[in-house]
């Protein structure tokens, strides 16, 4: 087995040890989903707002839930913990690339997340009386966009944890990241509801790809051409962040001080 596959497999096996944590995390996201569904049902009861209809909003929120659950389990705490506790020292004497190893670990946790997403989305669809699925090309574009969520989210979280090399504490960084992420990704409210200038910034930021892009494609708010464009931006950020994170890592290692004896 390859070095990275082995690391992904390690997490895939070990994650069941955390099933309670994973479940609680998903329950929290689920609560948020239920609350948002309730709010939007009231708001959109009579007429669409900014062009969003109630069925569209249902689908938007389900996609939001799925995007929120992807790459969510432990990966950031795991990485931050390694840096803070000095375990990163042992990662540095391994003949593997640090970033690819952490990515492999994030992929290893994916299977449980996907299982939970499928369970929640199918039962929600049943409760809400079925979901409309977009037509062929849009569906394909949506699938690509969802796939890109995985590396994109990993990279944003990864860059955040690299900040630990400088700050030595993760709580602050994590809160800031979560706040910015949920606002600019469209997870809190669709970007169309943000003030114009903020909406524009958000749309071009790396965060839009985390939720807004796949969700808008799914509900058909954007046509195929615009959708392609959004996915291209999403892909562009994945590439930029992948190499940017490498530069950041190099700088981090140069000034690394390992805590503890």
């Amino acid at each position, binding site marked *: *087995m*390859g*070095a990275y*596959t*082995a*690391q992904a*497999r*390690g997490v895939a*096996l*070990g*994650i069941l*040890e*955390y099933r309670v944590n994973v479940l609680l995390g998903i329950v929290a996201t689920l609560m948020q989903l239920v609350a948002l569904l309730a709010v939007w049902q009231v708001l959109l009861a009579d007429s669409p707002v900014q062009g969003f209809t109630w069925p569209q909003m249902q689908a938007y929120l389900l996609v939001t839930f799925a995007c929120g659950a992807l790459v969510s389990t432990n990966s950031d705490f795991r990485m931050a913990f390694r840096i803070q*506790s*000095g*375990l990163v*020292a*042992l990662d*540095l*004497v*391994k*003949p*593997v690339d640090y970033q690819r190893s952490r990515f492999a670990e994030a992929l290893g946790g994916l299977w449980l997340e996907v299982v939970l997403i499928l369970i929640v989305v199918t039962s929600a669809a049943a409760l809400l009386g079925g979901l409309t699925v977009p037509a062929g090309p849009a569906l394909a574009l949506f699938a690509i966009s969802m796939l890109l969520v995985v590396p994109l989210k990993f990279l944003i979280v990864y860059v955040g944890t690299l900040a630990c090399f400088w700050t030595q504490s993760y709580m602050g960084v994590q809160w800031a990241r979560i706040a910015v992420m949920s606002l600019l990704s469209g997870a809190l409210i669709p970007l169309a509801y943000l003030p114009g200038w903020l909406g524009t910034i958000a749309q071009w930021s790396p965060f839009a790809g985390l939720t807004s892009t796949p969700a808008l494609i799914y509900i058909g708010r954007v046509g195929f051409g615009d959708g392609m464009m959004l996915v291209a931006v999403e892909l562009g950020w994945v590439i930029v962040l992948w190499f940017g994170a490498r530069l950041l890592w190099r700088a981090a*290692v*140069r*000034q*690394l*001080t*390992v805590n*503890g*004896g």
Partner: protein
Amino acid sequence: MPPIVEARDLTKVFRRPEKDPGLAGSLKHLVRRRFTDKVAVDHIDLSIEAGEAVAYVGPNGAGKSTTVKLLSGILVPTTGEVRIDGLHPQHDRTAIAHRIGVLFGQRTQLWWDLPVRESFAVLRDIYGLDAATYRKRLARFDEVLDLGEILPTLGRKLSLGQRMRADLAAAMLHGPRVVYLDEPTIGLDLQVKDKVREFFRTLRDEGTTVMLTSHDLADIEGFCRRLVIIDEGRIIFDGDLGAVKDQYARERILHVETEQPVPVEAVRLALPGAVITEGETPNQISVRFDRFVLTAGHAVTALAGLATLVDFRVDEPSIEDVIRRVYSGEILFDAKSA
């Protein structure tokens, strides 16, 4: 052959933020950042030949762990250079990773949430070991370290002794040519310590280069031939362990128990140059002597002429006593090496 580990003029300076306590202190630090420099490793020169077993000792905070981190490429030196097998730690990280093994006694590289066997399997794949080599090594480690009941246990459920044995195996699984062992016996009971020490000996006998850091000097006696002492970031001694003992641990104490009380004055006359002290009972006596002036055999023979011996025993000072005297400043090495 060039040395396998070579450090030249190695220095590591840590910058520590100078903060007053409390929130006010933190805020002040944000505005006016002040730092103090801590020189953890101070212009060290060290070269280790392939196959050597080197003891690296020094008091707490002397810079031992920092040296290990520099020599394994974990930290980038402030000044100076490290070469491992001729390679540069930061430029040839992957190549070096295959050549070195590192154990920090206070940390584990095992996966917390996996059985030890699975952690080993991940390491096997990370280092690209073939199945046969892997099995062979594991079997050999099992002989000495007794891994049987450890392998199926989850990382976080191991006792300290089990964890250390598993970590030792993990550090050696890829057959590194150089290993750095930083406090590998910390917190272990005597029986496990013995096992671990036996494991070190098998490593050395197979030709692995070992650099061992420990506060338990029994770890190094009978294992390392070379002793390096570091204090406040500087190497204050680098030389042969036996020679140090010859020079600074010459004293022996002979304890004898006799059938009849021994006249102390008679012993003093018979063994001039030795210090005689009476024991707890009139039948016990202790003779302290310099082994280059008097031999234990000589002393025993002399005493046997004065009384019938029931029992006797010779105490040698350990390297521990010597090192303690070095730390306390009682022994000063004039030159860097003896």
